[in-house]
């Protein structure tokens, strides 16, 4: 098992930089998720760690050893690809045992290790099939089996669940989590799906345009987003974000609507400052239908007309217009609301976020 450290890691294609000198320390046996929108450089970063892309600058260490110029085969890693990348002309058993065969391991050992991995992944009945005879989920399990038989120091996952349907994805997510608990090695997992990142990772790295926006536990990035981008990226439905100006104890929105300045920001922002106000749908709810108990909340009530509702069964998403924008609120224990109906909305300001309108940095610190 091993640590992975990236130091000022840069990737350029020609003159175009795609990864701008990122730093990251991955602890031994940690499960790290790299998330971000497409084109943010997360896959490129993973491929540089794997050795499939050259490094334009900086350094990568695996287990303390500099691996910048080592080919993938010398890095003791294994990788699971989005498209599974199985060898179509080999059976499941041959696919899984291929790396061991290449490493010159004796037949008996290969058979034993393949059998063990097959048992872990419930692939025993499929060992003699070819990839073309397997379903998507089975192929994905074979790809994982191929990764675990090698007992690598680091597992790299490149959007492994993106090609699966929603139901299978949820199922495989749990399998991956169990697998990590069992093999207990360092994992770096790239995904654009924040739910995967939140549910699987010990720490999440949120990337944007080749930069790291925030590194933190799922709790951190959800509760304490460091930037406006993270606030908008993590959480579903996304956080309500709207520009406002601070004016003695108030937030004034375009169009004149106001909210009280949340208490936790009283001594942190001065009057006249342009900010972005953020509030999760969970913290904006029709009065009496929220998550938080009343005593800790700093609730501000506004009466608004409902523009649209999305009933999801156990909850309903209620859309209303406030300060010229559509705001999403989450109603627990839902009751029937019709569009146009007036409803009292509770803004739980103790959970609100403020970001600098220019830099996008959180003003909480």
């Amino acid at each position: 098992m091993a640590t992975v450290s990236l130091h000022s890691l840069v990737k350029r294609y020609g003159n175009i930089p795609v990864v701008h000198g990122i730093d990251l320390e991955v602890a031994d046996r940690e499960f790290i998720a790299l998330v971000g929108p497409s084109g943010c450089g997360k896959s490129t970063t993973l491929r540089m760690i794997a050795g499939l892309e050259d490094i334009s600058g900086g350094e990568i260490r695996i287990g303390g050893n500099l691996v910048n110029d080592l080919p993938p085969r010398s890095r003791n890693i294994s990788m699971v690809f989005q498209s599974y990348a199985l060898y179509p002309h080999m059976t499941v058993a041959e696919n899984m045992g291929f790396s061991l065969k290449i490493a010159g391991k004796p037949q008996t050992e290969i058979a034993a290790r393949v059998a063990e991995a097959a048992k872990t992944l419930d692939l025993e009945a499929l060992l003699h099939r070819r990839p073309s005879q397997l379903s998507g989920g089975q192929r994905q399990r074979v790809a994982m089996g191929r990764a675990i038989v090698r007992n690598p120091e680091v597992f790299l996952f490149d959007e492994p669940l993106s090609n699966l349907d929603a139901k299978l994805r949820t199922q495989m997510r749990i399998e991956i989590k169990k697998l990590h608990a069992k093999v207990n090695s360092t994992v770096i997992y790239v995904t654009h799906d924040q739910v995967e990142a939140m549910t699987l990772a010990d720490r999440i790295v949120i990337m944007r345009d080749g930069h790291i926006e925030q590194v933190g536990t799922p709790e951190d990035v959800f509760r304490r987003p460091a930037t406006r981008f993270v606030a908008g990226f993590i959480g579903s439905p996304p956080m309500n974000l709207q520009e406002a100006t601070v004016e003695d104890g108030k937030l004034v929105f375009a169009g004149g609507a106001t909210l009280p300045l949340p208490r936790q920001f009283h001594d942190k922002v001065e009057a006249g400052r342009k900010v972005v106000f953020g509030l999760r749908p969970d913290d904006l709810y029709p009065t009496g239908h929220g998550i938080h108990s009343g005593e800790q909340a700093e609730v501000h009530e506004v009466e608004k007309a409902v523009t649209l509702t999305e009933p999801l069964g156990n909850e309903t998403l209620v859309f209303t217009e406030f300060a010229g924008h559509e705001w999403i609120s989450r109603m627990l224990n839902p009751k029937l609301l019709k569009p146009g109906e007036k409803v009292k909305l509770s803004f739980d300001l103790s959970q609100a976020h403020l970001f600098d309108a220019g830099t996008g940095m959180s003003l909480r610190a």
Partner: protein
Amino acid sequence: MNEAGTVVETAETRGGNASTGTLKAWRLPAPVLLLLPAFVVLAAVVVVPLLLSLYSSFTPFRLTRPDSIWTFIGFRNYERLFTDWEFWVAFGRTVLLLTVALNLEMVLGLGLALLVEKATRGQRILRTIMMFPMMFSPVLVGFQFKFMFNDNVGLINNALQALGLTDRAIPWLIDGTLAFIAILTAEVWSSTAVFAIFILAGLMAMPREPVEAARVDGCTPWQTFRYVTWPYLMPFAFIAMTIRSLDIARAYDIVKIMTDGGPAKRTEILWTLIARTGYSDARMGLANAMAYVAILLSIVFTALFFRQLAKARAQVAAEW
């Protein structure tokens, strides 16, 4: 008048007896009618000539004595062939040419394709240049190589002497082995591109991830090629092999121009022998018998490569 009346009468009578549709009864059904032109053309240009040539291989037919085609002699032509040393030498030489040329073209074509695929810039122009040799008529290729291998004025001897590698005039097209090599060179030069193009198509169609997976799995570049890339390319190589084996099994033009099977039949291959027997010696019956044996060779090679192709495709096809 009378005839027409009879027809009408008959039709009426039949109509009365066997209900409707009697007029259609002596017409051809529509599907047959529509397919007929195709059958007629096929019969005229393929089936009849084929049967005629097969028949003539059972006669002592000579072009100089047309009536000899009516003398049926059974398998005598074939019996003669099986004991004809000259024929079997030509047969063997054709198989040798086929085997050596296919292998060489395969290796060179693979190399070319791998190199061209690596080119990041100007790949299209390289692909076009690569196909140049295929754009020349084999007859012209024959003439060109005949000139190049000429022992007096040829480019090859000139170059070898200028470089000081030899001070003799090497008899390229006179010595049996050397002439075979010269023909082989012309053949390989003109057709390596077939392999290169098919294999390049395979390389370009091939997904990248398995190769990357192999690199991560610990493969050296050679192992990656051996275990991952090559199995993907095999179907493409076998298609090229099938095409080229048919090509070489009927090779004629390059050899005809360069050596005409000579000197003294040292480079005689099947079709130069067949053409000589049929046209120069005018023994068309015997030549046709030879041709039928030669076709067997083509069929055997085609069947062989198709089986390999099916096997290779079954392994990788489902993925693409």
